[in-house]
């Protein structure tokens, strides 16, 4: 079965990504609210990619729990609106009259027996109350189900929201020497729950991967706990959901759900520091990096403890740049380095003017950061 994929930007241009990747649609979302042409667009043919932030047909254990009650509420809503609209429309059809001047319409005002009408009102109220109580109970049940993961999380990912990117730290509670830091891309093992510690370094952000589960705020001064459990391999989009300033719109990230063996291999690879440059070009590139980028960016093995910007130790293995907004390929990377403000105006990374040869060397060096 092809892997569910909800990713973009267009992956075909990203050469290093796995081949098992394709843009195939899955079972289309139930056209519940076919109220707009948007629904027609979604229900169209199979060559269409699923909207990445669609959260029904969920791929996470938590997200699936939330699906049921959300559908129920939406169905209830449609039913209620339909009933009320019908009552108003039919009432008008049955009772309305051609308007004359109301001034002369005096006889229409007369005493009418309201008993039947009052009974109807009480009935409506009673029905409303019963339905609402049912949904309250359903809600509480769902909340209890999503409070903790179905199994003990094997490890923890601490994500710190920062304007406008994601600082990620993998923590192995059993073996602290396995801990490592990365940014803007998260990998999780399929079928194994992961604990999330959510923090913020500056303002309030929100961690949200709709295809896997609900969202949780990242609030400075406190640590919020959440959990993730991906059921199926795939690439899932996340985006910040609390207005956090100028580039809130461009603060996204990707979650890769890998089969467990692949995930373990990924962890091992990410733990390693960057390899020493082998060629004169990459060596020169490393010098350029240290001089121009090392103030903000850590590359373990080259520069440590630079905390202003994302950790770039394994930059070349990342699928996107700029916090999930552009693909990580040569063209975009060059564009990002030379003119980040043009892509993400207001981003805290300044444009660094480099000579042509420096630039080539730097790119070569960065390409070694697998």
């Amino acid at each position, binding site marked *: 079965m092809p892997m569910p994929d909800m990713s973009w*930007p267009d992956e075909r241009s990203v050469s290093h990504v796995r081949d098992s990747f394709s843009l195939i649609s899955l079972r289309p979302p139930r056209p519940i609210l076919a109220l707009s042409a*948007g629904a027609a667009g979604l229900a169209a043919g199979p060559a269409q990619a699923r909207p990445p932030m669609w959260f029904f047909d969920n791929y996470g254990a938590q997200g699936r729990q939330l699906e049921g009650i959300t559908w129920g509420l939406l169905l209830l809503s449609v039913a209620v609106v339909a009933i009320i609209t019908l009552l108003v429309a039919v009432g008008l059809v049955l009772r309305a009259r051609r308007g004359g001047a109301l001034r002369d319409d005096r006889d229409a005002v007369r005493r009418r027996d309201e008993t039947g009408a009052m009974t109807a009102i009480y009935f409506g109220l009673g029905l409303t109350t019963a339905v609402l109580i049912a949904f309250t109970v359903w809600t509480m049940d769902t909340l209890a189900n999503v409070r903790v993961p179905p199994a003990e999380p094997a490890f923890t990912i601490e994500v710190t929201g920062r304007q406008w990117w994601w600082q990620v730290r993998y923590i192995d509670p059993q073996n602290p020497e396995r801990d490592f830091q990365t940014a803007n891309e998260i990998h999780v093992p399929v079928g194994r729950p992961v604990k999330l510690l959510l923090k913020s370094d500056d*303002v309030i952000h929100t961690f949200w991967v709709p295809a896997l589960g609900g969202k949780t705020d990242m609030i400075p001064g406190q640590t919020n706990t959440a959990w993730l459990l991906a059921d199926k391999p795939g690439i899932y989009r996340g985006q910040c959901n609390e207005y956090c300033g100028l580039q809130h*719109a461009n603060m996204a990230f990707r979650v890769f759900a890998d089969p467990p063996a692949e995930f373990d291999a990924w962890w091992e690879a990410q733990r390693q520091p960057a390899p020493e440059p082998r060629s004169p070009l990459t060596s020169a590139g490393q010098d350029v990096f240290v001089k121009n980028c090392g103030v903000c960016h850590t590359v373990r093995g080259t520069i440590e403890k630079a905390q202003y910007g994302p950790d770039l130790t394994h930059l070349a293995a990342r699928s996107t740049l700029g916090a999930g907004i552009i693909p990580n390929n040569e063209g975009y990377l060059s564009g990002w380095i030379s003119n980040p403000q043009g892509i993400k105006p207001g981003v805290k990374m300044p444009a660094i003017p480099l000579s042509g040869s420096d630039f080539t060397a730097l790119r070569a060096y960065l390409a070694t950061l697998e």
Partner: protein
Amino acid sequence: MSDDPFIRTPATGPVTPELQDRLEKIWETEPGLFGWLGTVDHKTIGIRYLVTAFVFLLLGGLEALAMRIQLSGADLNVLTPEQYNELFSLHGITMIFLYALPVLSGFSNYMFPLLLGSRDMAFPRLNAFSYWVYLASGLFIYSSFLAGALPNNGWFNFAPYSLREYNPGMNMDFYALGMIFLGISTTVGSINFVITLLRTRAPGMSLNRLPIMVWGTTTVSIGNLLALPAVTVAFFMLWMDRTFGTHFFDVSGGGKPLLWQHLFWIFAHPWVYVIVLPAMGIVSDGLPVFARQPLVGYTLVVLGTITTMMLGFGVWVHHMFVTGISTMSLSFFSGASFIITIPSAVAVFSWIATIWLGRPVITTAFLYFASFIVMFVIGGVSGVVTASAAADLQLHGTYFVVAHIHYVLIGINLFGVLGGLYLWFPKMTGRMMGEGLGKAAFWVTFFGFNLAFLPMHWTGLLGMPRRIYTYPEGAGWTTVNVISTVGSFILAAGLAMVALNVVQGLRRGRAAGENPWDAPTLEWAIPSPPPPYNFAVIPVIASRHPLWEERLDEGTGRSSLYHGLLLDRGKETILTTMLDAEPDKIAKMPEDSLWPLITTIVLTFGFSGMLFQMWWLTGLSVAALLGCILLWLWPQRSLEQTARPTHE
């Protein structure tokens, strides 16, 4: 007995031309600039509120249209991120604070004394003051345009982004101080409505005979008095953090960002009921006029109004479902948010029952009122969906919520207001608005609104977050956004047609007469437009629908509309007891006065001093303010506040 000048038996009599002339001279606004600046006539003040509120509606609408253009395609660059963020912030502030309540205050201000059978509000000078402060604070906030420093953190203004560390410009200071400033207007306005309701009703207008709009406005005014200080405290703390380095919200000093959210939402959730309950009241009073049937279930609707406001204080945490609170908190506030649906649903059933029992005549006003029911329910059910904390974990912060808020704000507030406009335009101006254009404008507005906002439910399900200035092509959000943009422009066109309808009505509408709709309540018993004194004689009320009494045969006895208290020895009206409206006291009403305006100007200087940190200016203004209040409240002989009576 007749020796005591402070006590007299008030004279009663019929309405005569001589009485009307005499009262006109006593009550009319002073001529010239003094009268224009110093009037205390609630009708003039009401119209000023309405006009100013509609201007802010226009400004907020233009802001929205700019945003919709930016969002009509992926990765557009029509607006810079900064511009978009400022626009969405100002749009929210304008609509929620500078339009939504003031427009309802405008109607209430104009209508309260007319609905209650009184000659003016309880505090006429305070009334004028509340308008001037509203205008001044609105201008204060909008002057941020001149400084190029518009509020840029939404209307909800979460900390820490609002602190100086992340927001060093004056943007937040304009907003914080402007809101405290505006809060003064809202507070004194609320006090005025409450006391007017409790004390100045006509004899016989017991509480169970009040129009629902009066119940609605009074209920939310009491709610205001209790809720507004939360946001005043919050903005004051924010301003202190930004200006004097206190640490209410800043984490490094032991502050708590969530304190802002609690204080803000403790205010802002009741606020959303404040801006819809009076509109629901307008519908509860207006629908029966055209349905030719009194509101079915009056008592239930009144209880529902009050209960909704009270419960509204207990649900604020549903705005904070994803902040990491305990499951118990989630359950409690989710349950409370579900429960609050019940008292608000009462009105829906009541309106439907009224239509079914009556014989509706479909006028433009009725179209607004009837469609209101459907849109109220759409807004209500999307609220029910997000009331479930489980569903909200996905839906929070998405366009689903945007759809919800616009259905309740436009569908309830604006459509109620437009219905009220068509209902009361004849009374306020003496002219009728054209029905043909009115109905056409309604359909365009209705269609445009639904085209813009109904798809947004879908947009939210597709996962589009709020408050983003752009989105990528592959997100699947483009088509729905285009549709919403098209709808928003159609909505704008519809509202432009309404405006045209108003202008044409003013110029060429045919004469309305006293009661063109054959409506039941008191305001339709006096000329259109009403004379400055409202009622030539204070009526005595015997039922809920004085002008339909004979036909409905409800209640004991008949109201006396044209034979009653003259109260013509100066500017006078009657004060009655709280529950049963028995005559209690003759109140003397103040003349036109410039103190409200002068005090407003002093306050403006004071707040400007705080904005620019010119403390000497603030200090001077405080001193001047105290002087103004002293002189304003100085006991006046003419108001019978001093030991020497006016009539000896």
